[in-house]
């Protein structure tokens, strides 16, 4: 049994939810589907943790699907980075699903629950699959699984704007996916292979050693670089749409706002991070950072876009009265921090970017879970209706305050760790301006988080808040588990920052997937 488990460990966390999803539909009962999906999520989480420990122990693990080695078949390449991310996705998936019960009953008609569970599992499958795979086309396929299920899940929202938001996301998302597909096609055209590691090796053939003129080493140079360049551009743009980088973020606020609370929790905690991961893979696993950052001025472009995005989105967040939308804009800003780290392309910066993926997932998950509790009890996401809820829902409000501190990046929360790492990385790189702007921008978070805290605690209660009672125990407990995690990973960072550091080292040592 153990041997079997160890051997198939890379594929089981993806296959289990993938199989349970149709099973939920086949059995067609709400309760059975609930139990099954919970089982699937927690088992997946357990397996991914096991996978992380295996990777730490053995190093990179390859798994050949169908027994066909690349370049013929599809390979699963598990390394510190993606196993880490998979564990996070599965963990968030499991905890959010455990949390979901009361909120789901409130927001989604009961007769649709089993379908919801099925799609939820599929979404998780898609995200996990995107992480695990070492095959570029397979990324596309799993991206689409997760995207399609996300569109449908978003459209489940109560208002009529939910289907509209889903449609807008669908259009943007499909454009992104098609761009990705074009990029993959161009790369395939140049290399004849789809395996990421293999593409990396093949692209090296196009590389011409740097010409030394008058003792000065010229810039490195690639043959056929025009196609590579365009391929890279299309992959980048496609993924940027998916991760909601600033000018391409238009789909995100509506999607997060109008989706059912549970969906927002899960999607906000995981989906954009997976795209960021895919981007990291493209930059470091396929193209070299040399290609991306020296041949192209990508780093400058990235950090300027990130910073503009951080400021614009943070300021936009301040002006939102709808709290879900406020957090959605904050998510756009936070993606900027991740890209900022990645754009530095060194050990520290990359570590910061990766660790922020993880930390922000936790924090945003926690905050949206809090929003879910409020929505259940207050029936509203408008700040006006939340007034004074701190008195009738003290525990939920406290969770918001702690989670908010994480978002701001106050010490002892995990948000601080990522901010700190990013800051030191920027200073190391002598990007003083970036460092200063980043710090100032993070103050904007204080405003948009604390406005809500003040509304909760210092305003006379609204009609809704007066009548409200504390959220159901199961939702509170799960929310506090995530909130506690943001604190734990703010102090004990061996696991988060340590693993992220390993992952960054792995990527920078040319560790192709």
């Amino acid at each position: 049994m153990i041997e079997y488990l160890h051997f198939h460990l890379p594929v089981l966390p993806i296959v289990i939810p993938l199989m349970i999803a149709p099973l939920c539909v086949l059995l067609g009962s709400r309760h059975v589907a609930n139990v099954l999906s919970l089982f699937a999520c927690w088992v997946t989480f357990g397996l991914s943790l096991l996978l992380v420990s295996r990777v730490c122990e053995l190093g990179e693990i390859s798994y050949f699907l169908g027994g066909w080695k690349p370049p013929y078949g599809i390979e699963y390449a598990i390394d510190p980075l993606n196993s880490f991310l998979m564990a996070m996705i599965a963990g968030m998936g499991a905890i959010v699903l455990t949390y979901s019960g009361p909120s789901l009953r409130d927001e989604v008609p009961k007769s649709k629950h089993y379908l919801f569970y099925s799609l939820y599992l599929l979404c998780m499958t898609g995200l996990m699959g995107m992480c695990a795979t070492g095959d570029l086309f397979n990324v596309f396929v799993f991206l689409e699984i997760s995207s399609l299920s996300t569109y449908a899940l978003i459209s489940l929202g109560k208002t009529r704007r939910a289907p509209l938001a889903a449609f807008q996301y669908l259009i943007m998302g499909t454009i992104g996916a098609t761009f990705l597909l074009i990029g993959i096609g161009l790369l395939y055209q140049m290399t004849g292979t789809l395996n990421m590691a293999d593409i990396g090796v093949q692209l090296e053939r196009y590389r011409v050693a740097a010409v030394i003129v008058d003792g000065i080493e010229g810039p490195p140079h690639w043959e056929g670089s025009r196609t590579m360049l365009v391929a890279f551009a299309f992959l980048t743009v496609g993924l940027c749409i998916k991760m909601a980088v600033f000018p391409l973020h238009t789909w995100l606020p509506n999607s997060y706002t109008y989706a059912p609370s549970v969906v927002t929790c899960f999607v906000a905690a995981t989906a954009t991070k997976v795209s960021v991961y895919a981007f990291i893979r493209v930059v470091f696993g396929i193209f070299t950072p040399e290609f991306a950052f020296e041949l192209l001025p990508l780093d400058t472009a990235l950090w300027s876009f990130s910073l503009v995005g951080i400021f614009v989105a943070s300021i936009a967040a301040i002006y939102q009265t709808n709290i879900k939308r406020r957090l959605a804009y904050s998510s756009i800003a936070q993606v900027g921090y991740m890209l900022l780290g990645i754009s530095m392309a060194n050990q520290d910066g990359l570590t910061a970017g990766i660790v922020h993926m993880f930390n922000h997932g936790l924090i945003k998950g926690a905050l949206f879970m809090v929003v879910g509790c409020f929505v259940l009890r207050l029936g509203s996401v408008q700040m006006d209706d939340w007034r004074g809820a701190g008195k009738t829902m003290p525990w939920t409000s406290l969770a918001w305050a702690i989670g908010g501190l994480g978002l701001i990046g106050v010490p002892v929360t995990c948000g601080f760790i990522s901010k700190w790492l990013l800051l030191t990385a920027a200073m190391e790189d002598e990007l003083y301006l970036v460092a200063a702007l980043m710090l100032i921008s993070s103050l904007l978070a204080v405003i948009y988080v604390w406005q809500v805290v003040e509304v909760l605690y210092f305003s006379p209660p609204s009609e809704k808040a007066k009548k409200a009672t504390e959220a159901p125990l199961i939702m509170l407990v799960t929310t506090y588990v995530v909130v506690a995690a943001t604190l734990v990973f703010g102090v004990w960072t061996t696991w988060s920052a340590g693993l992220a550091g390993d992952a960054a080292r792995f990527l920078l040592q040319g560790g192709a997937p």
Partner: protein
Amino acid sequence: MSNVTPETLIQICMGLPLVALVLVVITGKIANLREACTITISSVLFFVTCQLAGHVFSGARPEWSLGDVMMPGFEIAFQVEPLGMLFALVASGLWVLTTIYAIGYMRGHHEINQTRFFACFAIAIFAALAAAFSANLFTLFVMYEVMTVSTYPLVTHHGDEKARNGGRVYLGILLSTSVAFFMLAIAWTWSVAGTLDFTPGGVLAEAFSEGKINAVQLAILFCLFAFGIGKAALMPFHRWLPAAMVAPTPVSALLHAVAVVKVGVFSVLKVAIYIFGIDLIADTHAGDWICYVAAASILLASLVAMTKDNLKARLAYSTISQLAYITLGAAIATEASMLGGGMHIAMHAVGKITLFFCAGAIYVGAHKTNISDMRGLGRTMPFTFGAFLIATISIIGLPPGGGAWSKYFLALGAVDSGKAWLMGTLMVSSLLNIAYLVPIPILAFMAPTKNETDDESHVDGGWKIKEGPLLCVVPLCITAIGSVVLFFFANQIYQWLIPIVQSGH
């Protein structure tokens, strides 16, 4: 107790407030039990701190690290040196008194959410101790922020509009300065020096000699630290202090005397001594700009204090002025000025807490907040105003108040460094201190009450003593006596602190 190693004592010291926190939360429903727990633990803590102080002042430098939980280079580690020890002693000693006082005040005033109050109080003390013991800037920063956040619920305790506005300014200024300047400065230090450990003699000297940072940059860095440590309330980032006056008086006492402001100036001193090094500041004149700012703060805050009729507001501006002394001490960067700054932490703490205790006692006892309403009040509250007078003397810097010594050393430092004009500043400020503090007790004792016939306490021609609750009055008497005792005890403190300025040589 003697068989306990100093390392363990550190752990106990920082563990006790957390134990108190847990106990307070658990026993929250039963007020007497809750407060018994707090008092017991704070007393034990003071005792343990004294034990530890015995070790540290006799030359031990116990260390304790949280182990491998943080990223390499940034670790939570503790090491106790005399300056931190002194701060810890002050904090833990005054915690006992503040707790006793708070019980009297909170009950006398029927405050809500007392459990939350005591819980946050415990966290703040924990943060103060941890900051005092911190072995590197990173730990210091973490604890500094923990304190900011944990005191926010204390400041906004009343939960009304006024509290919200006060809290907004409090959190806004403290968080933004710490994030925008302090954090940047730390990261800069890290990238230049490669370490954040507090090292006798400073860590930046080497980087300076290697040319990684020049004199102007050093000065900028020093400014970043001085302004970034917003709790030191250097102008123009001082607004949070008066804003935080919306808090209940024990909190104000905690903020202004024990924990918050002291952790600020303590951090400034610590950075000046252990990150820059006295010699480096003196050689590169990195602190000159801050000298001007601090001197200006001293005078301006005193002037503003004179205009305030609200007692707590006047005390708040007085605090700003007094804190600037300590920052000034750090910026002047001579041995004497550093020692003076260090001593002033203790002297001012004891003096200022007395004043705040008095303000609270007046509020509880007579429901007066404005100075102009306190005419003749000294006759009904002689102990309170007596203590107020004694503390005033210490704050002004007159013998036999403890403050005399610290100001003496600061002046000495100013002369040493060749900035004789600072002497003038100190003199003027002392005069201003007299001008805004002394009238209060005089008014209370000498002036007739505004409307004597209406005064209930004026019965049968005699003055009936009507003090605040006993639990309020006893602590303030103790601290008033303490501020006098410190005058005679100053040599001892001087001896304790000597190693911090000498270890660099």
